[in-house]
């Protein structure tokens, strides 16, 4: 018995034996205590204990306030009560036609729930709002429903484990919270063979109803799916495509979990099948809608969670509301059935992209692939599977040791694969940074940017640590560049690559800000300036890395054509492409600066601070990591203070960008991705040349002229638009 004192009265609080007690606690009924307290306390007052302050009081829930009290919004007290009151009958109806119709509705609604779950709501409030799923054994007499529930549970289970394995971020971990829901039913692992058996039965039923009447006699012993012969074919088909979708989808997930992408070929086949089953589902929508149980043919099935447009039996979204405490669950809006089908199509297409990837051992290609993949805005599940592919057992694709990946990225010959250097502590750490980077690049853009900002510092530090470690090992030979020592060369090459990679991360960090809409037009000038500065460094490091590796290669080739090489030396295309982007960024900086200087537009004049503070805030993480060295707000002001439109028209960076992009097109004629980037750069440059001309010619003459920037051609290089208002 617990004892509590209120005023002068001792209150006996009966321990409640119906709720099992925990390690250190027992549950007690506090009603008598509260009743007494009510006499003393007025509305809104609180008992102020030593370990209970005003901050803690904020977590108070107001009992009987429907916005907060998760208890009162429930229709049923428990799952058992829901079942007792007939919320989830088995069978759904003794009329077998209605039974099938209702079963299909449940399947559809579950699909909507599943998609809603993937999109960020809890499993408890979506998929497991289904009473049938919560009590696996109850459906055993209903083979069809039973098998469907089994595969749904197994699928959820597979997805939860995949997403848990990638240890994603706290922003998306709602996905994996299962609150002790029955995610694993007995025998769920056999779901595929059970599905297969049912598929066979219904296929036979379908054949039977389609067979010409002469043949029917032979098939007579086959009992139809339901009782209305006119609808038999339609219902058989509707059920079959749903079952087959589930089967193939489960296969996809299983195949994709096989190590080193070994199941991808098979997964692709199942993805294609899934997509075609989804199409069949859409095709049969009309049939289901015109033969539904609820009678009302809605105009807009777009707004239903089932193809038939009927409300499904057996769901109650408040059933698990007590499970998802302490946050009071809000009513959530489920995706409509059509949206759910679209969601799964999108998911499958994203997975198809992953399964078609070539598992290239070159880091640069991997990074480009991930960044390109993220442009498709994949949802959590697809991103999780990408990460599972990229990083397995600390190796790239579970196949290539990270040191080999680093060696390749540093343009070192394959022979170094087994070099002792990989045992060096700093090198091991570098390897961890690389796998960590790959993981981060698979997360959602918002989280990704924040993480990238944080790891910049780590990449900076590892560079210093590597430098020290190498020095310790090889002494001062490190700085004598024409030493033939292989180990020294390896070190230098790795060091320069680390810098290059760091600037690559910085670029991604800055450009993601556009996608996330973090910059306002008054920030554009400084943002492009920073991008410009970082790109120059990136180009420089890439260039040095490539030159040195050529040097090494050439020396091995025994100084064949030394003098000729020097004359014919060409800047590598990768560096020229950077040059092109640098011109574009510079053009934008100068254009924005000139507009600011001459027209007083795109300024930020708050009452509390200046542009300097905005600069410090936007680039805090880069500045902290000295990326690059000796760069400050004052360098930015120096570059931009004197920008004038008149000088811009004479020296126009956009034209340079255009010219280089055109030239590069030949070099990259076999690389569609690069060609795409070049085309976008050209478009941005072209638009900005035109806009700049317009402003120069008419700006002062026509005060109604307005200018704004949009991202219609490139994700982060803005195109200026000039219009009369």
């Amino acid at each position, binding site marked *: 018995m617990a004892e509590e004192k209120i005023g002068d009265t001792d209150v006996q609080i009966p321990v409640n034996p119906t709720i099992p007690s925990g390690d250190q606690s027992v549950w007690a009924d506090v009603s008598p205590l509260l009743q007494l307290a009510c006499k003393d306390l007025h509305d809104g007052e609180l008992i102020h204990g030593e370990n209970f302050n005003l901050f803690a009081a*904020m977590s108070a829930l107001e009992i009987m306030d429907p916005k907060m009290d998760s208890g009162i919004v429930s229709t049923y007290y428990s799952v058992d009560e829901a079942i007792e009151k007939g919320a989830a009958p088995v069978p759904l109806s003794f009329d077998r036609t209605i039974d099938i119709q209702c079963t299909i509705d449940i399947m559809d609604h579950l699909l909507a729930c599943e998609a809603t779950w993937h999109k*960020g709501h809890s499993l408890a409030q979506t998929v497991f709002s289904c009473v049938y799923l919560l009590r696996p054994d109850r459906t055993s007499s209903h083979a069809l429903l039973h098998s469907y529930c089994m595969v749904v549970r197994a699928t959820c289970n597979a997805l939860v484990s995949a997403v848990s394995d990638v240890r994603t971020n706290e922003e998306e971990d709602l996905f994996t919270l299962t609150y002790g829901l029955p995610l694993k039913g007995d025998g769920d692992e056999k779901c595929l063979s059970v599905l297969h058996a049912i598929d066979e039965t219904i296929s036979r039923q379908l054949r039977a109803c389609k067979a010409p009447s002469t043949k029917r006699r032979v098939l007579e012993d086959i009992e139809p799916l339901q009782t209305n012969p006119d609808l038999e074919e339609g219902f058989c088909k509707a059920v079959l495509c749903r079952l087959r979708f589930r089967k193939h989808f489960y296969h996809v997930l299983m195949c994709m979990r096989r190590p080193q992408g070994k199941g991808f070929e098979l997964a692709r086949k199942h993805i294609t099948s899934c997509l075609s089953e989804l199409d069949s589902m859409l095709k049969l929508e009309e049939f289901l809608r015109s033969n539904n149980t609820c009678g009302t043919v809605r105009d807009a099935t777009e707004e239903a969670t089932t193809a038939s447009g009927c409300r499904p039996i057996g769901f109650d979204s408040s059933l698990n509301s007590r499970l998802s405490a302490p946050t009071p669950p809000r009513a959530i809006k489920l995706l409509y059935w059509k949206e759910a089908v679209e969601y799964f199509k999108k998911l499958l297409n994203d997975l198809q992209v992953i399964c078609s990837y070539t598992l290239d051992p070159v880091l640069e290609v991997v990074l480009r692939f991930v960044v390109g993949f993220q442009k498709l805005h994949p949802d959590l599940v697809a991103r999780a599977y990408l990460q599972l592919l990229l990083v397995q057992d600390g190796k790239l694709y579970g196949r290539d040791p990270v040191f080999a990946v680093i060696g390749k990225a540093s343009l070192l010959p394959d022979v170094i694969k087994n070099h002792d250097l990989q045992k060096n502590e700093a090198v091991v750490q570098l390897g961890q940074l690389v796998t960590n980077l790959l993981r981060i690049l698979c997360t959602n853009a*918002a989280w990704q940017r924040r993480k990238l900002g944080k790891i910049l510092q780590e990449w900076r530090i590892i560079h210093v640590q590597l430098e020290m470690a190498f020095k310790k090992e090889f002494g001062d030979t490190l700085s004598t560049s024409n030493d033939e020592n292989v180990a020294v060369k390896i070190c230098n090459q790795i060091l320069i690559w680390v810098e290059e990679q760091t600037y690559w991360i910085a670029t991604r960090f800055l450009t993601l800000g556009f996608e996330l809409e*973090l910059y*306002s037009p008054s920030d554009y000038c400084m943002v492009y300036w920073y991008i410009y500065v970082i790109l120059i460094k990136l180009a420089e490091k890439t260039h040095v890395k490539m030159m040195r590796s050529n040097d090494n290669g050439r020396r091995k080739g025994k100084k064949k054509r030394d003098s000729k090489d020097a004359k014919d030396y060409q800047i590598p295309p990768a560096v020229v492409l950077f040059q092109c982007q640098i011109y574009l960024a510079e053009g934008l900086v100068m254009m924005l600066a000139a507009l600011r200087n001459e027209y007083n537009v795109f300024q930020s004049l*708050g009452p509390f601070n200046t542009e300097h503070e905005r600069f410090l805030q936007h680039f805090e993480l880069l500045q902290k990591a000295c990326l690059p060295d000796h760069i400050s707000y004052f360098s930015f002001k120096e570059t931009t203070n004197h920008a004038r439109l008149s000088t811009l028209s004479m020296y126009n960076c956009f034209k340079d960008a255009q010219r280089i992009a055109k030239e590069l097109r030949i070099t990259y004629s076999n690389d569609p991705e690069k060609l795409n980037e070049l085309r976008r750069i050209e478009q941005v440059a072209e638009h900005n040349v035109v806009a700049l001309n317009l402003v120069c010619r008419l700006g002062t003459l026509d005060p109604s*002229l307005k200018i*704004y920037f949009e991202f219609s051609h490139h994700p982060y290089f803005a195109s200026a638009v000039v219009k009369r208002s």
Partner: protein
Amino acid sequence: METEKNKKDDEAEGLGLPRIEAKRYLQGSGVEYVSYGGEHHLPLIMNLVDQELSEPYSIFTYRYFVYLWPQLSFLAFHEGKCVGTVVCKMGEHQNTLRGYIAMLVVLKPYRGRGIATELVTRAIRVMMESGCEEVTLEAEVTNKGALALYGRLGFIRAKRLFRYYLNGVDAFRLKLLFPVQRHTNISR
């Protein structure tokens, strides 16, 4: 796509005359601003916030703010009626003092007249005078009005928070950094 369209309206800059700050304060039109003055103000604040914001707050949430930082909450009255309020706090954050704007509401018929700007400005001024280095808050990415308002006051969008709100919408973390006395630092 929708954002592109909005951008044109919100962010286009006229090249004609330098833009003159057109502050449409209700000058002399009888809006009175007062700092939180005690328990009698509490129902007024709660009422406003309940009407305009979706988040359910218990009375204890309001108490936490107005009891601990009464100087950071303000109310706007028009002809005796409370038409707007701002509720804030401040505290240590990673070794710096930081202000935080928790709630800001102006009744619909009274919007667009600079009332919110004045309320927030007053709160921020107190934070600055109390030694805060920065002010932060979160706003839904779709809340154009609030984003424009804070943008004008010098807040930047420091971070995007994925599905921050229970309705699944992302948020921006907005931040306003006060200038430090750089000169004194340099001379030392």
